[in-house]
């Protein structure tokens, strides 16, 4: 039995009269890969924001003390004309050039045999806004792992990436989980990904629908409960 690092009890998040998360309880163990799935508007991103203490909530969120948590939000847009290079962006987090190169290696943006010259000119001094979707996502992951976090919260790792690229990003996250013993919580739409990469799944649609090992808990009933109610959910959303 591995060590528990996050314990959430009766978490409720409301904005005005609108309850977004209701009475949610679950726990995360060290080295888990937890996939959070649910329809649009189910409160998945809000759950992350609550875990990071960005939004007010009731209930209990207990992280193990002195845990370093890194977060990659769903929305990260750099305008094409925003003058910032990859190097400058990574330096906002760490000034250690060695760590930067190591992180780039971890996310597959630098091969061991790459010359210093090559990496300087073709990646580090490249403008952030000119990177492809896949490259940008890897740079964001490099940014997130720069200070060796214990936990990575990743909201929709493959938003805006083509199908071929998706697989590589997930392989990469799995690799980080193995090599750096990083606990990963990710939000995903894609159930195939969940079966393949996650050892734990949390299905939410405002409330907890299922929680456990994907093969045990993702049964047809849970899926109907999770996604079947979507139409009704939308009908309510426009009340105010």
């Amino acid at each position: 039995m591995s060590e528990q690092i996050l314990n959430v009890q009766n978490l409720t998040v409301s904005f005005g009269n609108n309850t977004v998360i209701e009475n949610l309880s679950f726990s995360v163990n060290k080295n888990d890969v937890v996939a959070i799935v649910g329809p649009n508007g189910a409160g998945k991103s809000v759950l992350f924001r609550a875990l990071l203490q960005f939004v007010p909530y009731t209930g209990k969120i207990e992280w193990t003390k002195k845990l370093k948590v890194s977060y990659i939000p769903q929305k990260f847009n750099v305008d094409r004309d925003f003058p910032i290079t990859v190097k400058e962006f990574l330096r906002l987090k760490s000034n250690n050039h060695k760590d930067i190169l190591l992180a780039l290696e971890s996310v597959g943006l630098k091969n061991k045999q790459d010359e210093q010259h090559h990496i300087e000119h073709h990646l580090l001094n490249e403008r952030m806004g000119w990177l492809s979707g896949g490259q940008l996502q890897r740079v964001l992951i490099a940014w997130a792992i720069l200070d060796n976090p214990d936990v990575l919260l990743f909201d929709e790792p493959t938003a805006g990436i083509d199908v071929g690229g998706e697989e590589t990003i997930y392989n990469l996250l799995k690799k980080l989980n193995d090599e750096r013993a990083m606990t990963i919580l990710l939000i995903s739409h894609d159930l195939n990904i969940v079966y393949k990469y996650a050892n734990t799944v949390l299905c939410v649609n405002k409330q907890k629908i299922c929680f456990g090992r994907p093969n045990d808990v993702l049964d047809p009933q849970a899926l109907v409960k999770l996604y079947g109610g979507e139409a009704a959910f939308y009908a309510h959303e426009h009340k105010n």
Partner: protein
Amino acid sequence: MNDLYLQLAVAALIGIGAGYLGSFMVLKRMSLVGDALSHVALPGIALALIWNLNPFFGAFTALFLATVGVWILERKTELPSETLVGIFFTLSLAVGLLLTPEPELLEALFGDVSSVNSSDLFITVIAVATIIITTSLISRGLIMGILSKDMAKSMNISVNKTNLIFMILISLVVALGLKVAGTLLMGSLVIIPAAAAKNVSTSISRYVFIAASFGALASIGGMLATGFLPIPPGPSIVLAGGIIFLATLALTPRQ
């Protein structure tokens, strides 16, 4: 110190400060904030003139109060800040126009760097140094806050506090710039050098440096042009900035 050198020094320093701070304002999409804010300075200038104080202090006090006021109101009310700014700032302009003694009105509206004295130079040196040092201290938070507020927060950066400090620095630079360009033209001193620098930079460090340099260049160029042409320095400096901007358009890098 010779009068012309004194004027050049004051104008160049203000150009540097405005270009430097302006580079962050443009990234934050706050280009027009300087323009709107400068109106608030007018009642402050008027009161300073009536009470025989240096107009800079009157302007800065008015700007400081307005900035902090908007920052607080934004949090306490549901009104969007652009509405607040719109109401607050035009009212100030109206009050300022009524209060400003007529002989000084033209200078307050358009600025007049030829009237500077050595105490102005002293104030300018201190203020520009404050702007540059403080901005570089908060630049990490500023940039992270622009890229992603949530990522900034996850790095334990206080985005609100960073923004308040930044707004106070904007008041300071606007109060300074009034001497050169006046209430009506001040906004251009922060926007134009930064916009021109953005055209020719791929990295932040270069961008910020070039914006400050363009600010100085526009000020010096504009001031020198008044030696040959029968035009006042304020509009001349703004036009010099415009010429720099047009020149950089041709040099914009494309991927």
